[in-house]
């Protein structure tokens, strides 16, 4: 089947098997391998992308369901060389270790902050509930999102670069 999907602002027309998952379309057909597959149950969130403004697990959606929609992946959140505040936050606050959950975690955080630019700790934890990380214990992910939220509101994030104490 032919689909037309806008990915990170570029329109792609493509022929796909109807059963092709969106995540496989992104990874295998477009070569956008930043979106990862961590499970086959829609549970880990490693494959999270933003479809028409909402965070979606791309392993639970067929490519044909994305026909006519606009998809944002981790490759599309930076502005050229300038990192998105969420990416900067993850770097500044050591929000990643192996980095495998990170693209999905970043996309969920971007979507969270687009809906709520000043989340509390528990709103952050709730907002990334669908994204599992086996490395970090979430402590520094929470701090990363807090950093980004301050940045997005034009405030100076507390603490020095890389500082670990909350």
């Amino acid at each position, binding site marked *: 089947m032919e689909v037309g999907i806008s990915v990170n602002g570029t329109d792609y027309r493509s022929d796909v*098997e109807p*059963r092709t998952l969106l995540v496989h379309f992104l*990874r295998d057909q477009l*070569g*956008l*391998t*930043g*979106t*990862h*597959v*961590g*499970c*086959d*149950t829609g*549970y*880990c969130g*490693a494959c999270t992308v933003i479809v028409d403004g909402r965070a979606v697990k791309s392993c639970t959606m067929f490519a044909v369901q994305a026909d006519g929609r606009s998809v944002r*992946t*981790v*490759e599309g959140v*930076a502005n050229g060389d300038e*990192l998105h505040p969420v*990416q900067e936050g*993850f*770097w*500044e606050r*050591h929000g*990643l*270790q*192996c*980095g*495998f*959950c*990170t*693209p999905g975690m*970043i996309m969920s955080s971007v979507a969270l902050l687009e809906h709520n630019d000043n989340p509390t700790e*528990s709103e*952050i*934890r*709730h907002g*990334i*509930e669908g*994204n*599992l*990380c*086996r*490395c*970090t*214990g*979430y*402590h*520094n*992910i*929470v701090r990363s999102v807090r950093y980004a939220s301050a940045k997005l509101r034009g405030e100076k994030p507390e603490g*020095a*670069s*890389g*500082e*670990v104490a*909350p």
Partner: protein
Amino acid sequence: MSTISAMGGIVRRKEDPSLIQGKGIYVDDVKRRGELVAVFVRSPFAAATISGIDASAALELDGVHAVYTADDVRHLGPNPAQVAVGTLRPLLADGSVHHVGEAVAMVIADNRYIAQDAADLVFVDYEPKDAVVDLKEAFADTVQVHEGASNTLLTWHGNAWWEGVIELPDPSPGIQAAKERDDTVVVGLEMVNQRLIPTAIEPRAVLAEWNSGYGSVELWTSSQIPQAVAGAIGVAFGIPFNKVRVVAPEVGGGFGVKLNVYPDELLCCFASKDLGRPVRWTETRREAGFSSTQGRGWIGTATITGTRDGKILGYELDAICDMGAYTQNFTVAIPLLGLFVAPGQYDIPTSYALHCVVTNTPTTDAYRGAGRPEAAYYLERIIDAYAREIGMDPADVRKVNYWKPDQFPVTTEIGLTMDSGDYEKNLDALLDRVGYEDLKAKRDAARAEGRLLGIGLSTYVEVCGFGPSALAGLGFSWAGYGLPTAFNGSGVVRVQPDGTCTVTIGTAPSGQGHETTWAQIVSEGLGIPMENIEVRHGDSVDSPTGVGTFGSRSIAVDGTATFEATKRVKEKAATIAGHLLEAAPEDIHFADGGAHVAGSPDRSVTWAQIAESAYQPHTLPEGVEGGLESSVVFSPPNATWPFGSHMALVEVDPETGDVDLLEYWATDDCGNVINPMIVDGQLHGGIAQGIAQALFEEAIYDDVGNLLTASMLDYPLPAAESLPMFSLDRTVTPTDVNPLGVKGIGEAGTIGSAQTIVNAVVDAVSHLGVKHIDMPLRPKRVWQAIEDARN
């Protein structure tokens, strides 16, 4: 701005810019022209004989290239990288299967969708047999997993493999005598340390490309030990090691599950060779539960005999340890690792028997902490029970029995040497920080109001930093399996002709930040800015002498090798700089990206100038060879022994049994610290794992060996909402077994945490009469324990 980083400073990670932009390369991101995809046909039975396999329908499907069974791969022999205890695992099930999910056939097709369709069309005739899953039943040998062989592979307390190396004393007569005295108490508990599924978020993935022209093979694999995988390929296929390249690029979490040579790695090489095309396999999440290794799985009794004033006169541990159906890399060595630390940081007579028993379940092996969390769990739980029995504060009981700082180096009962420790100081630092007395008052006040607050304490010691290549004889080395490497670490430091630096190490990290930490070591040594240092790892061709990343060994071993190589490069660079600046090498010092003459800072050369000269040998002083690099292989004289103290505050809901984790504090000691940010991050993840084991993680099998928790829906992992922020601090007691004074941190959080939580929950309900609750402490279990105690 250039950063010359000092060791010990917080430095943002070098690996992050690519990872946060989705540009990191994991195995499944690597593409090869013409690649084919493998899918495995797996057994639905835990025990069965195979009377026939019919692949004809699968082979008729368009896009299917081959279906392989045991007949096709028998000539390769069993996986060479397994301890030769018990029945060796064939690469594909050969005539019978021994656990659900064992691979019976391998289908190769154009893509994963077709391969999966074809796998469903492979018909296998099974004749099911009785399976055994329960550990006590398995130990009793009522059903044998492997026909004609006892299920007990060996018991760690003194068997031939081990005894020849270290004389194991038997302290039980002394313990027995203490038990018979009437001024002593004996406290014993049977406790389960349940099976866990490691669940790295990246499933394992493999891409093999055989090149018949060069007679070589390249394998990309999500592995912690690429060099060992390369060795196994060489042995299995009978090709020289310089024709094998194994690459572990970014690896999405290891935790021990990627510390193995798996049949699928060898099978993809075989299929690629046979078909002349690259072959890929990517594990699905459900497969990860069936075919990769799992951890823990002990049931045992811990007993303390001690005086009423807290002096422990004997600690006994008798446990059955689940090996699963086969042994792999370190399977039987995991309980041994537990034995190494069974008496913890205490000067106490100990007696132990750890029975390694096979069952009809997937293999167990190293998992975050590997044997040491189990050992710490039994010891620290029973110390708490003993403290309660004699009415003493659990912190005080621990202090009475600690090794004292002036006793180091300590020779443990089984003959290992503990390098350094100051346990009481570490515990006091924790107690002061949390305000222990106030915390207890708060708990008691809450209790008076009918709320169930509990405080849990655990201290621990771990053995890590493997290791001395002399441990080869104990199985802690691949040399014992016929693979060409003992344990040691390597570091190659090369200053390139433009003055930048390439560092190659023998590790294969899976998120531990090696690129940053190693760049810090070299940057401090040479005064070259961090951004001009590239750290390479995880490639068996680049770093042939390493053994990978596991057991919190990398910094103590490969870090030291790199530190030594850095020193040698610096010495040579001083000679060259001295020649260029007409000064004595002793007067040269390195800073700000170059070399300076002491006392006259204007007389200096840059690293680029030194390197330029190094690579133009005619400019060098007589007798100095060209080039500017050093390669060091380091075998440490001993392992290292980090330690720490953890505490948790919990509240139990008396109506539901729900446990609310209110606070978590830890004071750890891993010797010197290179990057505090990375060390804290490692602790966070480890603590999260221990909390999850205590509260909800569990691999559950039914009576006939079906894994009921193969998907993430059934196997709960800690999510952001189930954890608090952690409060960390440290003491610093350096080791003298390496010049950096570093010990290792990757597993400390896990080793210290599960029993901290269980101790806290039991503390919250002990006044109701509860003595113990087995993990995981799901609400129903806690509620039931309260009910049982009340009635």
